[in-house]
């Protein structure tokens, strides 16, 4: 099957405007401009594009929350891609940037926005520099700016750079960061559709989500809805990393490919690195609970890992082989969350701090059985109390590894007990 998002893998140089246009580029925008904004929203709703940033919220519904009528509105592209193990949005914007610009323009037209901000994590500045040509060309080609394609629709597009903060992937933190504040999330409501960027109605969509929009406009909602499963339409980019032979991004149709195929399939990772045995994988970077070999039969879709107690999320799959120390892995991930906690809400600020401290004690051989219980208790007591999803997900490495690999924790604290105190 031809790629829907990763079209650069089929068409050489599609990052160039002329190549993109020669291969059907900006046809989706033309189609959209021939429809009413409401019809465009309905088309996206009917296609059932769910957010690709991890939460899976339907994009069409998000757009429909925007107030009707005049008044300043914004589209903000979330390219803060910072979840450990995630590297798909960079490839999309580097290699197939016009598809994202086109998706954002369709979104802008549909909700009545005339300004798009693309929020890049600051570390991607070099990639943005390369992708900048696309914006320049789009302006020159009449796809951005005033009176786009003679339709009377105006829309500007600006890149904005973050400066190193995972939390800015959370939409309200991202908006705060865009507005020049600390990148801390706010308690919703207000939702961005009510009061987002500069307190104006705003849609925040992930890069990959927007890249799904032009093909839907060109091929129709039915075509898209027929791809994938009932609950997960379309295709998904999966980021494969860790102990696999051929890590990288792979585009798959939702529900059609199992994690086993992803790891062992010839088109995909071609097996474990150095032929080692598989131990576990994190399906959604640090945010989804770790799963065991049985989950390899689960497929890539929003619902595909439900039976295994985890979730697809952003589909950032970190694969670990038989030699991996799971307490070490939990500490690595917990350190990440502690480092990235913005500090705004108590449970996340304090909880991630203590989770990491306690894991350290255990890793350094100073842990006790009590420390394992403390981990368990802290992780559970954080749940349901945090201001945003970061804190809620931050417990996942500890809860997941304690559930499946408690014996590894126990063996670490037992070693301590074997040595008498001086």
């Amino acid at each position, binding site marked *: 099957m031809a790629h829907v998002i990763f079209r650069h893998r089929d068409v050489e140089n599609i990052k160039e405007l002329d190549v993109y246009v020669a291969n059907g580029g900006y046809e989706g925008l033309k189609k959209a401009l021939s429809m009413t904004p409401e019809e465009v929203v309905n088309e996206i709703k009917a296609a059932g594009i769910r957010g690709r940033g991890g939460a899976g919220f339907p994009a069409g519904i998000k757009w429909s929350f925007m107030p009707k009528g005049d008044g300043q509105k914004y589209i903000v592209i979330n390219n803060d891609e910072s979840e450990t193990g995630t590297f798909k949005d960079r490839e999309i914007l580097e290699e197939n940037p016009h598809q994202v610009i086109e998706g954002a323009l369709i979104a802008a037209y549909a909700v009545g926005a005339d300004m798009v901000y693309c929020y890049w994590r600051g570390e991607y500045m070099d990639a943005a520099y390369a992708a900048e040509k696309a914006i320049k060309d789009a302006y020159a080609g009449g796809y951005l700016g005033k009176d786009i394609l003679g339709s009377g629709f105006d829309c500007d597009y600006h890149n904005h750079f973050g400066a190193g903060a995972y939390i800015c992937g959370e939409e309200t933190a991202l908006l705060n960061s865009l507005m020049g504040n600390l990148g801390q999330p706010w308690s919703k409501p207000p939702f961005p559709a009510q009061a987002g960027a500069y307190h104006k109605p705003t849609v925040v969509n992930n890069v990959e989500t927007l890249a799904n929009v032009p093909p839907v406009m060109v091929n129709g909602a039915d075509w898209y809805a027929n791809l994938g499963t009932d609950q997960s339409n379309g295709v998904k980019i999966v980021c494969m990393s860790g102990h696999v032979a051929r890590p*990288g991004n792979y585009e798959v149709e939702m529900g059609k490919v199992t994690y086993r195929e992803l790891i062992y399939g010839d088109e995909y990772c071609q097996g474990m690195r150095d032929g080692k045995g598989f131990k576990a994988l994190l399906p959604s970077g640090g945010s989804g609970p770790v799963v065991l070999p049985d989950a390899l039969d689960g497929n890539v879709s929003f619902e595909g890992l439900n039976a295994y107690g985890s979730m697809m999320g952003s589909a950032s799959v970190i694969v670990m082989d038989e030699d991996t120390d799971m307490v070490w892995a939990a500490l690595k991930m917990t350190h990440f969350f502690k480092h990235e906690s913005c500090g705004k809400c108590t449970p996340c600020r304090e909880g991630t701090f203590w989770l990491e401290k306690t894991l350290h004690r255990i890793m350094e051989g100073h842990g006790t059985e009590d420390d394992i219980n403390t981990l368990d208790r802290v992780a559970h007591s954080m749940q349901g109390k945090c201001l945003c999803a970061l804190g809620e997900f931050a417990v996942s490495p500890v809860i997941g590894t304690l559930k499946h690999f408690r014996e590894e924790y126990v063996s670490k604290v037992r070693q301590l007990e074997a040595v008498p105190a001086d």
Partner: protein
Amino acid sequence: MIAEKYAKEIESLFSRYPADQRKSAVLPLLHIAQQEYGYCSEEAMQEVASIIGCDPTHVRGIAGFYTLYYEEEVGKFVLEVCNDLACALRGADEFIEMAEGKLGIDLEGTTEDGMFTLKNVMCLGACDRAPMLQCNLKFHEHLDEEKFDQLIADYRAKAAAGDNEPTVVDKILIQTHH
């Protein structure tokens, strides 16, 4: 003083945001100030505050929140190695140890000649190409000891020859053509 040096570009930077939202430019301005002053010095932050027209406390808070801003002096080249889980599974921790040895510094340290600062950072979004690092926000991927040696040699040569690569300032201000 970046206010004078980039007067036109900075005005254009502000034009990207609503007129009453000058604070929006704080991140790009800090990127520029850091490039020009070498790090987010007291002076750099004062200047950004005065360009925006806000209290310096705000700029200081921003510089402290985001990890790409350095509040302490750093070397000419800042090597930031990702050793998050995905990279660590592919040898990032060992890579850092190797780099420390080669440069003769510990993490967060700067070489005596002021050329390199070595840091470890959270996920940079290049997990499939680990070990990897960014040097002044430019990615270097699929690294090993040999490539690291080469990379260090290249940067030293660049420094000696006068670095002509696009800087952070260029990358941020490139947009001013719209």
